[in-house]
């Protein structure tokens, strides 16, 4: 397959936009059913792109980004599946394009690495965000958001163009690399999974006082109980909120009652703050 510089540039731009769209903006442009036809159009095989998009979309239905989990990346997967279907001259039928999906998987995995890396690096930017907030620097907050979108866009653009020229040879190399250094990526994965505890700890610092420890453990226990029961596991946090609301309302009513009766016996009408 001959690729000219304009096509490469267009693929870069499309991958740049989709890299952003997977988390922000419309969150639907990047789905393979839309993405693959666009790539097909750029490379001159519109019809084949449509078919690959439909086939990839069916696989993708089973791996949605639920509960913060990151499935193998559909964008690079979709782009490369289209590229392979075209370069290998596959037939534009559902069965004909099947093999293209398998060849695309190493790229989908690498797309996932790009996301993991970006999320890790941007954790370090939160200190900068705190500083901007403390100075009421509205533009600074905006720029932090622009920055991550730009990083994601460029990473995806570069990977897509590399895939466009490197093809299946590059795919095999990427596969070897990820196999060789799997412990590094697993380490980032494990660390990424634990970083949210820092966010929880900051929230605790705001709300915690000696009398609150029981409620923290109660919420923890409530969530564990819900998770152990498959039929209600998906509603865990909602059920936690229900129980929490009941406790909070009860406490609110009791406290206001105590305040009002204490106020009337002393005879003062102020709210005592």
């Amino acid at each position, binding site marked *: 397959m001959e690729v000219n510089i304009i096509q490469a540039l267009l693929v870069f731009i499309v991958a740049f936009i989709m890299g952003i769209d997977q988390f922000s903006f419309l969150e639907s442009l990047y789905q393979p059913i839309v993405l693959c036809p666009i790539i097909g159009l750029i490379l001159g095989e519109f019809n084949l792109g449509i078919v690959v*998009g439909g086939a990839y979309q069916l696989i993708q239905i089973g791996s949605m980004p639920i*509960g913060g989990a990151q499935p193998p990346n559909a964008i690079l997967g979709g782009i490369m599946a289209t590229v392979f279907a075209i370069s290998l001259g596959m037939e534009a039928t559902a069965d004909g394009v099947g093999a293209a999906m398998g060849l695309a998987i190493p790229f989908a995995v690498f797309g996932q690495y790009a996301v993991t890396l970006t999320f890790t690096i941007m954790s370090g930017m939160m200190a900068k965000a705190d500083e901007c907030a403390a100075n009421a620097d*509205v533009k600074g907050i905006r720029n932090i958001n*622009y920055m991550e979108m730009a990083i994601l866009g460029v990473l995806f653009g570069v990977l897509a163009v590399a895939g466009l020229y490197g093809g299946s040879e590059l795919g095999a190399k990427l596969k070897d690399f990820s196999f060789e250094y799997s412990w590094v990526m697993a380490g980032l994965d494990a660390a990424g999974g634990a970083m949210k505890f*820092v*966010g*929880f700890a900051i929230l605790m610092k705001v709300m915690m006082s000696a009398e609150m420890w029981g*409620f*923290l453990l109660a919420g923890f226990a409530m969530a564990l109980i819900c998770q152990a029961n498959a039929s209600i596991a998906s509603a865990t946090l909602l059920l936690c909120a229900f129980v*929490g609301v009941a406790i909070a309302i009860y406490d609110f009513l009791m406290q206001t009652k105590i305040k009002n009766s204490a106020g009337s016996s002393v005879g003062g009408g102020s709210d005592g703050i």
Partner: protein
Amino acid sequence: MAYNIPERYQDLTPAPQLDKKTLNKMVWMSCFLQASFNYERMQAAGWLWGILPGLQKIHTNKEDLKASMAHNLDFLNTHPFLVTFVMGIVLSLEQNKAETSTIRSVRISAAGPLGGIGDAIFWLTLVPITAGLTANIAMEGNILGAALFLIIFNAVQFAVRYWLMHWSYNLGTKAVTMLTSNAKEFTRAASILGIFVVGGLIANYGTTSLRIYVGDPAINIQGLLDGVLPKLIPLAITLGIYTLIKKGWTPVKCILLILICGVVGCAFGIFAGDSKAMDADGNKIPGGYTPLVEWYELPAEE
């Protein structure tokens, strides 16, 4: 943290109602909730960016705007399509100049449960149905499939975003005026709910676990821990970091510590982690990855 967030705003006069135009602008901005997503605070900076148009109108006092921006950078993870519900409520509290700790507690309590609801509505219902139907049209080589998918998905998405914003803002402003006469008690109740939900978040999102097997026959250490208390490790790490932060550690320092522990731990195969890597035949690596130093044997999967 160098900046201490005050408990109360300086200007305690309620701000005028936000106009429709500002609310609609924030509906649009809510699409970029995850623009600066990261592992530490997740959607925090995108959230702040999204409600800034409203905050700037509400807090004409610059010191108050600083305080409000600072506490709106707390950890936040909610469903991107339902976030305007949280925005409406938080804006109504900000407008009535509620205490900052109240707003923080209410925000996390409202945001947390929406994740599961949103996943159920969007990723498990709307997308599979529309994508399933339209993928079949696409596989016949018809571009109508893609067009239909985009139209249906985005029509639902924006209807939900728009309606939730206006509904929850109006609901919030009505409820808040009733509660301000008992501000102290309300803050306490909100903290109870907030801390209860944080406890739930630890168990719900805490995924850190051990990979190690020891002895012969091999015993899974994580299995033993689960027998004592499931999610013991997430709870222990959270409490450990809470202690560090109370001692004055910055969040960045905590993150670096976690990063080092994660990578070094996986070099020795201590923590469970998924590299998503495959061998030459396309098979997944057992246990998620191959440690740099293999000092124990991973039993074959049953």
